[in-house]
């Protein structure tokens, strides 16, 4: 008890050092960087606040504040320093409007939907944004540090989730490929014929499903299965052609030479088969992308029944949904995937996986599309869902739950991007849509560093986006139209749950 009191005293005394630090030259620089919310590059490396990976019972991140406040949540530290009602000290100096040279080579090309710069869309696309924001009070800003730490945590977990998906997809590819390694070509041909039959059955089961799978998933997987079936058919025909031509079957080993960092493709047994299955070797990105997925379907469907059962237990990215059939009864088919969520429910999903599933377009197709995210943004700002678009009633209910995961940020009215924000780009009148995660934002140059996972499953790249087309120094700089910012809440909610506080939460998909 006595120790606890001493500890509390030390913590309070330590917390009181924040404003004092701010008054010193070094402290002022350090604190100011946080207060004005500048980019990572501008924040000194000796950051006094660091997220230690733990949370309190409400799910708030517990930060290390220069080692003096260890074990406290940032909100608690803020209250210690500035109890409610107490006048908070003013800090002068602030942002000096240091105008950085804006890089004119920013890649915004894929955000330039036809006519995008000319379109006037909600939300308030022509609102000018101040380039030299005033300094807010330290107390409020301390909690901003917590938000930033939360954002950093989300980015790390989002990256990890995507990596986990890519690794799992590669692992599955290799697991399935083993069975095809030393197979004679004639046996290979038989497997392709078997795959055609098996995939046709899977397609029919999916088509006849009335429950057990969401419509979007059904449509997407039906096409994936059809592509796989067509590939298997092309492969079977190719082998048959060679057999009929009475030529010696070209028995190229796919396991001879291959480039470093590439996987041997066990399906590429001949030159023609290499064309069908994407080459003699595959890059990890290909193996974890749409090409690899369709190849995995072919390999799985071609396995003899007994081997199928054994292999199924080794696969990481597979779901076994029970699909109610139009003719009555139910069937279960293995659905191989690239980390997509299945089952349609938004609740009980881990928040970081939830967010990472919104980044790649491939995953969004069957989860929450940019059309949904734009509507969620409007719902969070205005309290009602926009109409149009017209949502199915069940879908609307699901979106309302998902909306609870976010706060909507209006950058057109001067609200600022923060680390970990989801930057949704979407025009109402065009299918173009992107979702990025903000890793840093410079309000002076109006440039954001973002994570982009839109290329292929399993890959994430960093890029810079200019939120304005107006050059630096322009009196009024306008934010590009079509940008909606969603900020994930820091505590568990209806849309998703944090691991530490999740009770019985079933984690599906990406992190599997």
């Amino acid at each position: 008890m006595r120790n606890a009191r001493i500890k509390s005293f030390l913590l309070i005394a330590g917390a009181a050092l924040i404003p004092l630090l701010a008054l010193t030259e070094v402290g002022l620089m350090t604190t100011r960087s946080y207060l004005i919310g500048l980019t990572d590059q501008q924040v000194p490396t000796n950051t006094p606040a660091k997220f230690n990976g733990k949370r309190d019972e409400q799910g708030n991140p517990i930060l290390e504040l220069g080692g003096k406040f260890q074990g406290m949540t940032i909100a608690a530290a803020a209250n210690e320093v500035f109890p409610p009602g107490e006048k908070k000290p003013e800090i002068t100096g602030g942002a000096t409007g240091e105008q950085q040279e804006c890089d004119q080579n920013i890649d915004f090309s894929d955000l330039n939907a036809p006519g995008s710069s000319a379109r006037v869309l909600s939300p308030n696309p022509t609102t000018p944004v101040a380039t030299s924001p005033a300094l807010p009070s330290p107390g409020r800003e301390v909690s901003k540090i917590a938000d930033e730490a939360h954002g950093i945590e989300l980015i790390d977990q989002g990256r990890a989730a995507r990596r986990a998906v890519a690794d799992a997809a590669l692992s599955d590819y290799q697991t399935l490929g083993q069975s095809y390694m030393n197979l004679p070509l004639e046996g290979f041909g038989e497997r392709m014929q078997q795959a055609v039959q098996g995939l046709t059955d899977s397609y029919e089961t999916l088509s006849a499903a009335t429950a057990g799978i969401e419509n979007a998933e059904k449509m997407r997987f039906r096409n994936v299965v059809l592509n796989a079936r067509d590939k298997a058919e092309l492969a079977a025909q190719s082998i048959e052609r060679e057999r009929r031509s009475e030529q010696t079957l070209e028995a190229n080993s796919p396991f001879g030479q291959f480039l470093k960092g590439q996987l041997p493709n066990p399906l590429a047994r001949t030159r023609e088969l290499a064309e069908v299955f994407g080459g003699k070797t595959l890059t990890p990105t290909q193996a974890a992308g749409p090409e690899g997925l369709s190849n995995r379907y072919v390999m799985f469907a071609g396995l003899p029944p007994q081997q199928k059962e054994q292999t199924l237990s080794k696969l990481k990215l597979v779901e076994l949904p029970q699909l109610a059939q139009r003719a009555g009864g139910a069937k279960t088919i293995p659905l191989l995937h690239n980390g997509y969520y299945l089952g349609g429910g938004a609740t009980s999903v881990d928040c970081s996986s939830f967010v990472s599933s919104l980044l790649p377009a491939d995953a969004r197709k069957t989860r929450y599309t940019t059309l949904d995210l734009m509507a969620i943004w409007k719902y969070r700002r205005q309290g009602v869902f926009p109409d149009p678009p017209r949502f199915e009633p069940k879908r609307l209910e699901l979106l309302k739950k998902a909306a609870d995961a976010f706060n909507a940020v209006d950058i057109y009215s001067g609200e600022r991007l923060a680390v970990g924000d989801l930057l949704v780009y979407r025009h109402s009148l065009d299918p173009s849509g992107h979702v990025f995660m903000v890793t840093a934002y410079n309000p002076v140059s109006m440039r954001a560093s973002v994570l982009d996972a839109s290329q292929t499953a399993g890959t994430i790249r960093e890029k810079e986006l200019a939120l304005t087309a107006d050059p630096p120094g322009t009196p009024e700089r306008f934010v590009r139209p079509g940008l909606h910012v969603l900020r994930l809440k820091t505590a568990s909610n209806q849309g998703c749950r944090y691991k530490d506080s999740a009770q019985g939460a079933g984690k599906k998909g990406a992190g599997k």
Partner: protein
Amino acid sequence: MRPLTRVLTGAGLLVALFASGSLTEHERLRIRNTFQRPEEVVSYYCSRDASGFVWSGLLEAERKAFTLWEDIPQQDTFFVASKYEIQPPQLSGRGDEAQIQVRYRLVALGDAHGTRMPVHPEDRTITYVLKKVSGAWKIAQPGWKDVAPIVLEGKFQ
């Protein structure tokens, strides 16, 4: 006789192309581009697109065989059309470039969850620019970033 045959053949092609857009059977995957004429490439692409294969994820093999794109289109939503019509090609240059217009009658913009938005204008014309590379006609324009999936009502649901 010969010009008449040519006209009839041309009309037949248009009808056939139009008809292919309303079949319920999906356009089978092709890996090799053995098409002799640019309109056949466009017909294949539009038919695959109509069944949702561009939306669900164009395969690398298709991308390489039929387009000059650096990457595959990545859109989570699509236009829904009631019909489309492929116009005759216009050859230019030394006969190694062709422009083909495809006229769509759009009914909505939406996603696979059934969400729908009205579209204006309802008529949309896309001009495909094809180039002949190593004897094969390939789609050069619109680019992969600008292409919007257009599925056919009734064929993709």
